[in-house]
């Protein structure tokens, strides 16, 4: 059974629905990518999983438990962490303090968790006393991922982790995403760089106007003519 199973989810921020029946699954140790045009509801679908949306229909089942309608803090404790698309670090706090805030709900000895994070992001070790707001965009994105990983989640939600990054950093973020997966975390991510993301993920979903449009393995979607016309520049 899939780790995350979203079934025909409808909902939105106010009274109007933004999602009109979105379904997707994420399996254990799987990297699943969501692509689609701007305003398609990609971020909104992710927020629905994390309890930041009023869900008016459908179900969200995580690890065998129905978490539809749960508040974010409860979802965090259940094992899902979320990296928002923007404003995803504490700019006025140091890199290390960002990680500490990520582990706010965790008690006890955290040295193993810090070792793991600095192992994933060796570049950040030298910068641990720098303010997150002073880092480059790519390093800030790593801080954001590190903060979310401090709680040792089973599922990590990443909203456009490579937005605005150079190709070099984009590759690095993808590589880290794979490393995180290899460490046993499932990943659902939204990507603007559709071609590169589909090439690197296990499976993908194409959303448009708040509903599923296509789904399949990354390779299958890349080969699909309709998908290619939609965003891959023909």
């Amino acid at each position: 059974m899939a780790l995350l199973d979203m079934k025909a989810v409808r909902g939105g921020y106010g009274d109007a629905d933004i999602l009109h029946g979105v379904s997707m699954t994420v399996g254990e140790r799987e990297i699943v990518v969501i692509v689609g045009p701007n305003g398609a509801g990609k971020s909104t679908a992710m927020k629905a999983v994390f309890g930041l949306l009023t869900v008016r229909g459908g179900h969200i089942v995580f690890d065998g438990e129905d978490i539809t309608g749960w508040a974010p803090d409860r979802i965090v404790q259940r094992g899902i962490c979320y990296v928002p698309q923007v404003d995803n670090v504490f700019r006025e706090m140091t890199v290390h303090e960002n990680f500490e805030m990520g582990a706010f709900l965790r008690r006890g000895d955290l040295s193993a968790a810090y070792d793991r994070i600095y192992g994933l992001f060796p570049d950040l070790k030298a910068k641990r006393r720098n303010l997150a707001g002073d880092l480059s965009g790519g390093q800030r994105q790593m801080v954001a991922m590190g903060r979310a990983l401090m709680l040792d989640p089973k599922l990590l939600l990443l909203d456009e982790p490579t937005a605005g990054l150079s190709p070099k950093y984009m590759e690095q973020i993808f590589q880290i995403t794979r490393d995180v997966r290899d460490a046993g975390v499932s990943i659902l991510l939204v990507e603007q760089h559709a071609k590169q993301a589909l090439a690197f993920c296990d499976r993908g979903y194409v959303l448009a106007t708040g509903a599923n449009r296509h789904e399949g393995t990354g390779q299958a979607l890349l080969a699909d003519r309709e998908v290619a016309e939609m965003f891959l520049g023909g």
Partner: protein
Amino acid sequence: MSFMEFINFHLVPGIVLGSVYAVGAIGITLVFGILRFAHFAHGDMATLGAFIALALVTAGLTPWAALPVAMAAVAVVAIVVDKLFYDYLKARPKIMTVMASLGVALMLRAVVQVVFGVDPRTYATGIVRPDDYFGILLRDRELYTLAAVVLIVIGLTLFLRHSRWGKAMRAMSDNPDLARLSGVDNRKVTMLTWAIVGALCAASGFMLGINNELHSMMGWQVLLPMFAAAILGGVGRVEGAVLGGLIVGIAEEMSIFILPAQYKAATAFVLLLLILLVRPRGLLNGKVL
């Protein structure tokens, strides 16, 4: 005027006044940074703290022993005020909370006037002669005030830098949404903030009172210089509030060199206008208002 006269009659009083402003401005900057509104009841909370300390002194405590008790009492008052008034408005536009705080200011002042009257009071009577420290003249109360301010600033800084909940307060000020996503309980941070702010109010009121006199308008009259200090230093920044407080206090005491003494109180206003014109985020780059 000799150099020592300048130090003793202008600089030292400026530093003492400035450190009292600093304690008030830290509270203002914490409310601004974490709860995101201008707290107009700040001055009158300080007045309340000063008079609670007076009641304790009347009951037999020495003034400096009354201070921590008054700080604890106003911490509780601040939490209760938040629960009764501000918390109720938290989903509304912030301007409503600002206006509510103005109402709270009037209420607190009225309570002080009903209980303690409107005449000026003092913690101790009699004239205190200053001691001579290598030519610098300092009264004990000034020395203790400076020491208390240094202790408060160091204690608060350590708390905010190193403790779990201090970091949660900074996180809430930095990025409230992300703090919530990280599992920080907004209500606990709010309560903790009010406890600290209330205690700081009481401390600033007490120090104003012991270096001068107590009267029911004392807090309201220092509200503007305290706000000026917070904004001058950069809203949301504790170090900024300390720096801003010292600058405003010293500038007020120096203003008599260029302005008639009646205009002393306008100094803070002029500084506030200047900083808003040339560097609206304050000396240490605070939040955008």
